[in-house]
């Protein structure tokens, strides 16, 4: 799955719903707008591992 989400944190529930329902094995997300201050736990999706690269 590929998507430019334009800020991930507020849409995490929607993204989670999509990944689980469509049984996605690998998701490519751009424009996460995540910062160091946002912990992995707040964008965690059960059953998935996140690998992030935040802007600077």
């Amino acid at each position, binding site marked *: *799955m*590929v*998507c*430019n*989400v*334009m*800020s*991930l944190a*507020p*849409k995490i529930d*929607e*993204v989670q719903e*999509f*990944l689980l329902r*469509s049984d*996605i*094995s*690998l*998701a*490519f*997300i*751009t*424009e*996460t*707008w*995540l*910062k160091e201050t946002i912990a992995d736990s707040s*964008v965690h*999706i059960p*059953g*998935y*591992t*996140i*690998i*992030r*690269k*935040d*802007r*600077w």
Partner: protein
Amino acid sequence: MVNNYGGVCFYLRDQSFKYQRLNDLSCCADHEILWVHLRPPRLPRGFSCLIVAVLYHPPGADDNFIREHLFNSLAAAQSIYPNCALIIAGYFNRLDVTRLKRHFQLKQIVETPTRKDAIQDLVLTHLYDHYDKPQFFPPFGLSDHNTISVSALAEMGRYLSSLDWPLLFGSLESCDALLSVFEEVIHTGLDLLMPVSKFRLNTREAPWMTQHLKDLIQKRQQAFHTKGADSVEFKFYRNLERETFVKQSFMSHVWRISL
């Protein structure tokens, strides 16, 4: 340009892959690209592993700079992991990837606009034969980019694993009955997913003499007889037929050479 935008990430389903982040492939912090090496349990024949990258190429960034980085990183990936399959996806924002595709034999599989009327979110991959056409979903929230979903072509496998085998075989006792049910199930699947199709093949003709080309020749002859050699119709079909002939015979040669 320091702001809060940008940033890329992957979500990997647990137990699907062994993964390893490849920081060596990112030359500097200026590109928003994340490289990951994956070992899925199954891969199409001929590929040793999967290298995936998610890219965000922001508006206003230097096209040549990111292209150069992609060339270097892809070349490095292929030398470290020979026969790796590549998938690079993300927001390319009008970046011209023609040379990149040609150089690394990649194919861009997204054919429908993802943002307004432009295709800006691309998927470049070696595995194009193994995936269905991408499906499109509405954007998440107020984002203006559609979501693209690509699923693997393994219809027969999915069909076979969706069956309740114990239920099918439970009531049967003899081997012959088991075999006949099994054959019936396989044939039903094959008829549904890979139906036998008929096509005509004349072994004495050149491979590029397709039915389409023959029809064009027929039309050209008719136009010649009914409208004359100087008519617009004749010239139209003559040119079309020549064009098709050259294209198809050329493609046929290319195909033979590449075998």
